[in-house]
């Protein structure tokens, strides 16, 4: 039972890592039906930005909490700027073109960003300092969960609630939902859809940056390629939960995390990916729109 609990909690921690990235994926998809493959790269850039500024502030002798705060804020601003720019350059000109064009454009941006960081920074793995606090009250439970995992879990929950409130109860949220339902109709009733989509990208990218800092702190390392690997799993999680749905992305991520963790623990880690994709296939066969996805009739 103790072993099960350990595996369950490590699955939860893993799930919340996936969820941090999956939330951004699903939000963009929910509004403009675009799978933003560059999302993983924005997450990686967030991690790098915080690493660079964090190192700078730390050598200036600032206290650790201030280093953390400032580097996260700068990472968020940088990533948001990246998200905004990517949308302007790579997606907006293709908005009224077939959806496949934007998808290919997204893959292209993803490769450009990876290679940009490879050339501008380094091909090596770098050590990622953890500026996150260690909680004394978690020390007795460190066999089960550590401070960083706990922080990731809490932040994931906060972001999920924040996004749900933003989309359900605010004016911009209402505009987002209108844009998602019908871009032309929304424009007719006075919604500035360009602005709404830009804001969606800015928020999604800002969240990716927060994820980048937290996950890199947890892994203790960073490399230009991390966005790709994490992005694929997060994408699976988002589809599993019903792409476009905020709680769905979180639920999908947890299911993926638990499956991988329990599968590793009781069967073998050799088949970790196999378990993840078997679950994905099973759920998509039973519920093609994902667990919490809306069953939308395609208009012909």
């Amino acid at each position: 039972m103790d072993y099960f609990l350990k595996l369950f909690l490590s699955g939860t921690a893993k799930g919340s890592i996936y969820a941090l990235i999956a939330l951004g994926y699903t939000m963009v998809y929910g509004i403009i039906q675009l799978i933003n493959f560059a999302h993983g790269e924005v997450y990686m850039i967030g991690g790098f930005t915080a690493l660079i500024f964090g190192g700078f502030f730390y050598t200036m002798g600032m206290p650790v909490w201030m280093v953390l705060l400032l580097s996260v804020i700068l990472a968020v601003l940088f990533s948001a700027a990246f998200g905004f720019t990517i949308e302007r350059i790579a997606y907006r000109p293709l908005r009224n073109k077939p959806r496949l064009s934007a998808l290919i454009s997204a893959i292209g941006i993803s490769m450009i960003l990876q290679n940009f960081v490879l050339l501008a920074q380094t091909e090596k793995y770098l050590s990622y300092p953890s500026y996150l606090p260690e909680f004394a009250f978690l020390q007795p439970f460190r066999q089960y969960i550590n401070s960083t995992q706990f922080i990731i879990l809490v932040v994931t929950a906060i972001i999920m609630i924040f996004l749900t409130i933003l989309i359900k109860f605010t004016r911009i949220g209402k505009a987002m939902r209108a844009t998602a339902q019908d871009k032309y109709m929304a424009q007719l009733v006075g919604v500035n859809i360009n602005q709404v989509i830009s804001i969606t990208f800015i928020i999604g990218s800002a969240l990716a940056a927060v994820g980048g800092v937290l996950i890199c702190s947890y892994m203790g390392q960073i490399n230009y390629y991390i966005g790709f690997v994490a992005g694929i799993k997060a994408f699976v999680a988002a589809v599993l939960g019903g792409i476009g749905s905020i709680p769905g992305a979180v639920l999908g991520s947890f299911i993926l995390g638990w499956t991988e963790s329990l599968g590793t623990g009781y069967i073998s880690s050799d088949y970790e990916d196999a378990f993840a994709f078997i679950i994905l296939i099973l759920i998509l066969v039973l519920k093609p729109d994902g667990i919490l996805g809306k069953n939308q009739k395609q208009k012909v």
Partner: protein
Amino acid sequence: MKRNVVILAVMSVCIALVATGCQKKDTSAIKIGVAGAHSGDLASYGLPSVNAAKLVAEAINAKGGINGRKIELVIEDDQCKPELATNAASKLVSSNVVAVIGHICSGATKSALGIYKDSKIITISPSATNPPLTQSGEYPNFFRTIAPDDAQAKLAATFLAQTLKLKTIAVLHDKGDYGKGFAELVKQFAEEQGVTVALFEGVNPGAPDYSAVVNKIGNAKVDGVVWGGYHPEASKLVQQMKDKGMNIPFISDDGVKDNTFIEVAGKYAEGVYATGPMDTTSNPLAIMAIEEHKKKFGEEPGAFFLNAYAATLAITNAIAKAGSTDYDKVSAALRSEYVDTPLGKISFDQKGDVIGFGFSVFQVQNGKYVELK
């Protein structure tokens, strides 16, 4: 008649003089073949060996050669292709070489070795690491100045069984050729020494989190963990193990014996064991050989340079010690004589594997890899 006797006597003295003169002054060159990839996409593995052989031969010839006989190198290209290697070998045999430095790639070496064996030509490879080349016992004429592929795993297994006295271990790998190959060999050699392998698993390289498999290690109650793979995953594993309060030995391969591992894993790297090629950077002969290379060729030497340098020194030393180029005497000398080389003081065992150079166990101590003796 008297005159004839005098002439006969003079002639016989002359003949005797000429005969002894011939024996004392056999100044024909000793031919040594150098074979390997000198063109094609693997040329960078083979060319440094040619440079090494040239440097050693020049140094010996400058001192008057071996027992007064100069060394002449015969260079043949095989592009690391087995079919070209047999051609190269036939050419070397017909130019009457005494020994061959090469070949470079294991496959090419294997196909050439049969030809050398039939012609009784000693072959010393600086780089062919395929284990059966020596271990099969098929080629008594074959020697190498590099450790075979399985030496690393054998060393790691012996180290954890004999030195650390571990009883139960977990073996993890990254599912790649290199990592999984190492892990499987460690498992095999460890089990031969009575160690129980309680867990043998591959993990996904690049995954953000290994806490599930770390929990599994904890649950298996093992005394040590072996990792076959590279450093990015190793540093996540040691970090997550120590986070969970597991302070058991972590033993890995030369994919982890890289300073980047220490930089990335930081304090978590302390105490980690890794096997790797013995350190030759402080060997004065190695420093000298590299300097010579820079002076003559104007650049840093390439792959297997020191191994080839050592191979050439070993064979020339054996010929000098044997006092002849006779196959049996020279191969006996290779097995019995120790020679100072850039790799250290080396000799060869009965099967032809190098003694005195190979892999060592290193441990991270105070942020540095330290060779354990």
